[in-house]
């Protein structure tokens, strides 16, 4: 489908537009965090501990007197960075594996796909937790841990697409003209697999945000930087006295993931109008 036609369908979908607006806002907030945040997210104001939302502290303060608003603003960076690189990493590795497994479907493909099944047999969060546990809690390790979990979904989807597409006539024609395997995969098969993969990428993007937040919540987040899940985790002890510590970062996560899901649903309608 030509891009322009897809865009014109997407433009009509108001919810998808709302979703894309939310995503753009989070991206802007993450980029301009130093300008938007009213305070240093790490600075302690010991005399202003556990204050409710007010004029000075828009979202209130935590038990160390840190400004929740500024922490939530800075937290956008971690969420965005982790989920972006997870999709990039899991997407490229998964699509690569899926292409190979679909193209050489017999023994090579069988081995690749059984390995993917093996990875998928672990509950996502548990596998990510285990990887973080052995690798340590740093940002690259968190991206690695979550990306590994989502490689199989990309690989499986790509493989199924390749199996169908490689039998098409235009691929046959290209092969008859002397196109090599790599050329066929890259130039003719991959571009025709992309539509469902883009939808899948948005789904994984949403899951990655949630998984990052869950890992941080469980205490395996990236140390030294405020993240949404991390703030929530700290707020857990003050649910009775200072619920605002937990409410605002959770709202940020939910809104961001909702934006991603709205966009994903919109894209799915573009590529697959029957499902609407």
């Amino acid at each position: 489908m030509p891009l322009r036609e897809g865009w014109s369908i997407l433009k009509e979908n108001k919810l998808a537009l709302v979703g894309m607006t939310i995503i753009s806002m989070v991206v802007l907030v993450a980029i301009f965090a130093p300008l938007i945040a009213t305070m240093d997210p790490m600075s302690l104001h010991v005399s202003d501990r556990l204050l409710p939302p007010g004029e000075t502290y828009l979202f209130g303060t935590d038990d160390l007197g840190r400004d929740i608003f500024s922490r939530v603003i800075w937290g956008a960076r971690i969420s965005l960075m982790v989920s972006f690189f997870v999709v990039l990493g899991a997407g490229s590795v998964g699509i690569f594996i899926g292409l190979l497994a679909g193209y050489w479907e017999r023994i090579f493909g069988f081995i690749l796909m059984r390995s993917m099944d093996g990875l998928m047999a672990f509950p996502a969060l548990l596998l990510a937790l285990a990887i973080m546990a052995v690798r340590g809690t740093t940002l690259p390790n968190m991206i690695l841990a979550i990306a590994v979990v989502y490689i199989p979904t990309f690989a499986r989807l790509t493989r199924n697409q390749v199996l169908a597409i490689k039998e098409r006539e235009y691929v046959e024609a290209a092969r008859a003209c002397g196109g090599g395997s790599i050329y066929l995969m890259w130039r003719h098969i991959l571009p025709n697999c992309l539509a469902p993969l883009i939808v899948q990428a948005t789904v994984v993007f949403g899951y990655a945000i949630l998984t990052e937040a869950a890992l941080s919540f469980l205490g395996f987040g990236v140390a030294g930087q405020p993240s949404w899940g991390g703030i929530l985790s700290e707020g857990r002890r003050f649910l009775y006295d200072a619920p605002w510590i937990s409410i605002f970062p959770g709202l940020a996560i939910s809104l961001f993931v909702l934006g991603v899901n709205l966009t994903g649903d919109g894209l799915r309608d573009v590529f697959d109008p029957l499902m609407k």
Partner: protein
Amino acid sequence: MNILVYIFKRIMAAIPVFIIVSIVAFMLIHLLPGDPAIAMLGRDADPAQLESLRHEMGLYDPLPVQYFNWVGAALQGDLGRSALTRQPVMEAINSRFPHTLSLALLAIFIALLVSLPAGIIAAARQNSVLDRGVMFFALVGVSLPSFWAGILLIILFAVTLGWLPGVGWVSIWEDASVGWRYLVLPSMTLGFILAAACARMTRSSMLEVLRQDYMRTARAKGLSEIKTIIGHGLKNAFIPVVTIIGIEFGWLLGGTTVVETLFGIPGVGRLVVHSISNRDYPMIQGVVLYVAVVYMLVNLLVDVIVLYLNPRIRS
């Protein structure tokens, strides 16, 4: 094809997956920087202690030998002992599993109770205000982090209204009359989010079913709309829903980790978090393998249920 033959084939197909799962679980502790003994006791540990732990864990054997020893024992129900408490890993898991099970079962029950009617109504009134409303709520539901949903429920029902206890646990298997009060909020947390995913699935599979010829036939022979949907549509639309529950069960097992931590439930999920925080590697390995096997078994069960529901696959 006979159902038993199908189940047999399905189990055979699960064996390579089990092998890969066990290799991944086994390799976990060998990915550690240094060696597992140092990782557990720390770099400054007494060399003699390190040495004896290495011998106990069989770290001087070749890797494949270590793997076969470990997986061989695991198949006989021996997952080793906790490095922390010396308790057998299997015993630790078994004592916590009933808590997680009660949580997961009630969550699935709540999910079905909410999602089936919601999804069916949305599909039957496609593109109506009702449909859009239900689907928007479902989308919000799948966007919520489980722990945050749990926190909101605690703030509403425990802090503000005071109807139910927020954090704490009494097992429903031991004292049902008190236990259910502790079970409601955590199960609702997981159940609602699961319901959102299932409602989306129910709606789309119901839409698929509504387009089928047999539905038109049922309507044409004069059945009321409700009878058509319940009698002919539901069973067919239920098949993808069962499948999605199988898939989401993996999410549920991860979700219990978070919810058990939030609500202070002594289940398998908290055991994972606890053993990871304490670098109790035999325990981590054991629980990871155990949970993956439970997940595989659930999906096997799901396949059998789908087979039962759909005679076309059977023949």
